[in-house]
């Protein structure tokens, strides 16, 4: 019938498309070659600007062309007056906008935009901010845009409170957004810093003080604001307890204070003629200029790490030749953070959520952390039960939970030891999978690790500088790396472990006072000639059980 609609066949359409593509490719290649030859000749004219624009608008990831373009622009900047330069750069910005529409995640376009914005004689930061906002409203996880935005904020000096409400807005539209939460965590300490000590009334008004920078400032937030943040983040994890971003932010809010760098313990032994120092954080004593003063006299000493593996370590010692003052001085570091009613009420709301969502791992983990912060010993039983549930609901990470649980058990045992004021550390049959906080056991003389699931005694074990007796029966220990240069160690009990080679016992040779060694139930005892080999390796041992 006359005038009826007909549709081109697929073959026809494809043929047309193919031709179209070919044509495009030809144009593209020709333009690219023209650009390259111009650049070679050092031509920086408008035509080159045109050509690169054509190419980049179809392929914004062509870094060489962006570079060429920058060369041209710098040339223009050198020869033209400010108004013209402004005009050229403004045109550049709108060109970039079209590139970003093609590919909002192009490295080249964003980088070039940053470059142009920084060189623009009269930048319009408000416009740049609104561009970022538009981009982020389309994809709130576009990290290129986040990066660019940070630059814009920095250059234009957007007030911190405005930025905080910006994160409010983004979190409001979608709270599954690490970028926003994290940005918040950097803004809050600036805007609502924790007041130093009791706030003095004569403090200068905040605006007259120099703008705080994140580097110099503590990462703590004042309590009033903290409460608001708790409320906000609770809304998020009650709405969707499976979303990690809120939980991570929550953990940041609850986070312990970073321990200040300080000497937590000094041990002076007259017998071994050595001084050992434990710090709250790993340090490099050789480079920080740690000074040993004896009887008012600074000593020229060389600090030694407890194990050659450690360049940074919390424990350092130095052999002292001259006389040493009497008596040991001991001081234990504080483990827990301040116990506030805030934490208690946080624990309550988490327990509430856990009742509704008994199998939510984030909730369980947070409850454990809160319990740790509040009363680690009092909640020990609940903590262990929650760890058990965690390992079941999140079996993929059961090893992680075991390690974490071990850490907490060790912390608890240290606390108990502190209360009892003894130098015996006993933590048997607690399913330990790893050892930590060994720096805090500097003064321990007797350690009992029997009936756990340990596989090794790590290099950190060498920090137990006062250790005399090591009990570690019924574990799965294969490696004794950390039993190294322990000056007082006399007795090592390793019944029923998995030590299979003599080489594994090599570190013991560095302990001069070792007398008693129990290796019963280890594969190594099956080795031929083991007794003679051991006698050669460990001549000091007089009481060997195989």
């Amino acid at each position, binding site marked *: *019938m*006359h*005038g*009826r*609609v*007909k*549709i*081109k066949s697929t073959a026809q*359409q494809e043929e047309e498309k193919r031709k179209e593509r070919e044509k495009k490719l030809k144009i593209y290649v020709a333009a690219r070659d023209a650009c390259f030859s111009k650049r070679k000749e050092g031509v920086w004219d408008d035509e080159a600007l045109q050509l690169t624009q054509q190419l980049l608008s179809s392929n914004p990831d062509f870094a060489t062309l962006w570079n060429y373009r920058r060369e041209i622009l710098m040339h223009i900047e050198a020869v033209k007056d400010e108004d013209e330069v402004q005009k050229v750069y403004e045109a550049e910005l709108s060109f970039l906008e079209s590139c*970003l*529409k*093609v590919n*909002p*995640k192009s490295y080249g376009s964003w980088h070039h935009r940053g470059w142009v914005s920084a060189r623009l004689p009269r930048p319009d930061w408000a416009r740049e901010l609104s561009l970022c906002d*538009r*981009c982020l409203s*389309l*994809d*709130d*996880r*576009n990290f290129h845009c986040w990066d660019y935005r940070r630059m814009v904020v920095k250059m234009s000096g957007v007030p911190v409170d405005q930025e905080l409400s910006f994160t409010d807005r983004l979190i*409001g*539209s*979608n*709270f*599954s957004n690490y970028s926003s939460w994290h940005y918040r965590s950097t803004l809050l300490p600036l805007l609502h810093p924790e007041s130093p000590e009791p706030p003095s009334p004569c403090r200068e008004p905040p605006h007259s003080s120099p703008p705080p920078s994140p580097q110099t400032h503590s990462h703590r937030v004042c309590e009033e604001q903290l409460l608001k943040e708790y409320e906000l983040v*609770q*809304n*998020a994890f*009650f*709405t*969707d*307890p499976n979303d990690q971003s809120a939980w991570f932010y929550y953990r940041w809010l609850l986070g312990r204070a970073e321990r200040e760098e300080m000497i937590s313990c000094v041990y002076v032994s007259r017998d071994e003629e050595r001084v050992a120092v434990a710090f709250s954080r790993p340090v490099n004593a050789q480079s920080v200029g740690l000074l040993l003063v004896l009887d008012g006299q600074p000593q020229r000493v060389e600090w030694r790490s407890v194990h050659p593996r450690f360049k940074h370590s919390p424990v350092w010692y130095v052999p002292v030749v001259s006389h040493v003052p009497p008596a040991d001085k001991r001081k234990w570091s504080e483990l827990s953070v301040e116990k506030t009613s805030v934490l208690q009420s946080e624990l309550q*709301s988490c327990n*509430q*959520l856990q009742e*509704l*969502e008994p199998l939510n791992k984030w909730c369980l983990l947070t409850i454990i952390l809160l319990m740790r912060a509040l009363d680690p010993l009092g909640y020990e039983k609940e903590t262990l039960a929650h760890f058990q549930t965690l390992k079941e609901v999140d079996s993929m990470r059961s090893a992680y939970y075991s390690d974490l649980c071990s850490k907490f058990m060790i912390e608890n045992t240290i606390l108990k030891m502190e209360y009892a004021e003894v130098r015996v550390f006993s933590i048997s049959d607690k399913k330990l999978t790893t050892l930590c906080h060994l720096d805090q056991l500097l003064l321990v003389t007797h350690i009992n690790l029997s009936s756990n699931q340990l596989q090794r005694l790590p290099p950190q074990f060498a920090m137990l500088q006062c250790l005399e007796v090591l009990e570690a029966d019924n574990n799965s220990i294969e490696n004794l790396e950390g039993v190294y240069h322990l000056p007082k160690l006399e007795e090592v009990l390793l019944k029923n472990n998995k030590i299979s080679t003599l080489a594994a016992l090599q570190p013991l040779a560095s302990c001069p006072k070792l007398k008693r060694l129990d290796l019963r139930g280890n594969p190594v005892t099956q080795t031929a000639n083991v007794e003679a080999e051991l006698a050669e390796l460990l001549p000091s041992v007089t009481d060997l059980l195989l």
Partner: protein
Amino acid sequence: MAAEDLPSEFDVVILGTGLAESVVAAAFSRVGQRVLHVDRRSYYAANWASFTFNGLLTWIQEHHEESQPEEAQDWSSLLEEGEELIYLSSDPASISNVQAFCFTSEEDEEEEASSPDPPNTTEEETGGANEDVVKETSETESADLKEEETKEKPEERADGAEKEQRFTALNDGKSTVQTDVFRPITQASKTDGKEPGADQPTASAAQSQSEPAKKKISYAQLVKEGRRFNIDLVSKLLYSRGSLVDLLIKSNVSRYAEFKNVTRILTYRHGKVEQVPCSRADVFASRQLSVVEKRKLMRFLTSCVEETEEQRAYNGRPYLEFLCDQQLGDNLQHFLLHSIAMVTEDTPTEEGLSSTRHFLRCLGRYGNTPFLFPVYGLGEIPQCFCRMCAVFGGIYCLRHSVSCLVVDKTTNRCKAVVDSQGQRISCSHFVVEEGSVGTDWKMVTSPPRFLSRAVLITDGSILPSDSDQQVSMVTVPPIAAGCPAVKMVELCSSTMTCMPGTYLVHLTCQSVGSAYEDLSPVVTKLFRTPESHDQENCPSVLWCLYFNMTDSSGLEVEGHHLPSNVFVCSGPDGSLGHEHAIKQAELIFQKILPEEDFCPPAPNPEDIIYDGDNNSSSMGGEENGGAGEEENDGAGEEEEEKKEVLEENDGEEEKKEVVEEEEQSLQTEGIRLQPLETGSGSVGGSDSCSPPAGSQISRRDAVQTPEQHTASTHNPQRESASCMMGN
């Protein structure tokens, strides 16, 4: 019409341009069937139409006038051996109880605040079918006669008693003349001598309100800006994963339309309007829910997506019971029952759950609510399908009807139709709107049902927020036992359905009484009208309209006392979505062409070639085959057909405004539905990295409708799809 005869043979003749009929037309045309699509009205979309304010006033007028029964012409001369005629009815009578009220001042008065006359004294009663009153109303409604009217007004103002008399007379007249029309109850009560007391506080309230800086928009302004309104007869929304959206995307008809997201879901509860948290972001941000409620709500919403044993145990029992047993608390129960499932307290659990699931499935596809609304009103949708039909050769005639069917006695099939001009047109199938089928021919199983509708033009949002451009869906549970649950949609001016500074509010419910009886109590509670007393903070109603419409959702497409190749499309139903009409259209299509694909994707304009067109390759657009008439010559321009048509009617001076409106239409930045294959169907998706929505997208990107000469003789008011191919 006499000048040009239509072709005498078609595959399908369709009478009525409602949604279902239009979809059927597009579907047939799309697979190569020859379609003739006619409508007796002067506008497209039948009861699905949208009107400008002035257009609506005309519509009101038409529904007050007695439609004189067309003398049934005898077309039996056209019959051949073994044939008989079935006459179609020409009086649909699907609209009743039309009542309009104006609560704002007639004129734009500067000294309004100090005027001793509160604005509400100018209230116009246009209710009832009393002939005299109707005449008067039509006068006040036509802008041309405004002068006359202002002359009339001082008299009214001078003598309040006279006004009262008028009301009395009116009611008397009504009770004598028309008994089947519902009387507006509040008006009736006024005549009981309570009027002075009842009027006084309202008057002072209105006056105190008119004093602040915000000046009330006058009736004259509404009329002047009338073209900014697109007032829908039916109030519906598109579920973003509903069958209409799917069809629009699948068929590429979506390229003719643009949409806005409904931005929030509200509900009326404890005497105030609250936002319903339904998306994840809403729940997070909600201030009215405790964290535990948040968790319970989210858990419920997540858990009900999958059908569980627990849910099955409640089959047949009320959804409310199921919700109660979930221990959600009153807040959540209300939200879930009334605003999310949008069901009643006795709806069975399985039904409640399935509508909850539908709601949830639709969330997040295009935004934070499950609904879309077409920019320029719902009347656009049927027209978009008509346009698709026209692009593939369908012929359109408005103000053109089918008078009777020619039926072969032996096969009981409709062989041909006789149009209103007396032309015999043969066809293989005939699809007809329900209203044109006389009751004798219909098989109706259930008693007739009605919808109660109200349209309000207000001066403020029902729940003011940071943005004044919110599109809100409001659920109002029954305000008293026996009252219907009301669905309310509040549209802002950026939907291009009302003038800036106003809101267009649609109320819909299943009728219990008349529209006025059903809905005015809700209006009084939520808005400030002369009848409301303590609504200081509510938006004022400037103008409102009540009417009833037949709810024909129970009607089957076939099985009537009609020939086997005649199919009936029902009119609008009361549900919020468009599922019913789309299902019906698809059913009809499948009955007739079971082998063919229903609305397959339309090809891109550049892939369409025209047979017999000398310069087919040069055709960029689709359908310039008609070689353009007057104004449609300018291919490539952003054309606004509707405005142009009006321009024709209203004269030269409007031209400037057309340009303005075009500019505005470019700024709407509505949602364009995209085919699913491109993967970017979810505009709201978090991973969507598409560039900022281009504001340059024209509303009409593809089809430049050529206007065929026959169409111009018809002088149809709307011609967005009025093209005739062929010959």
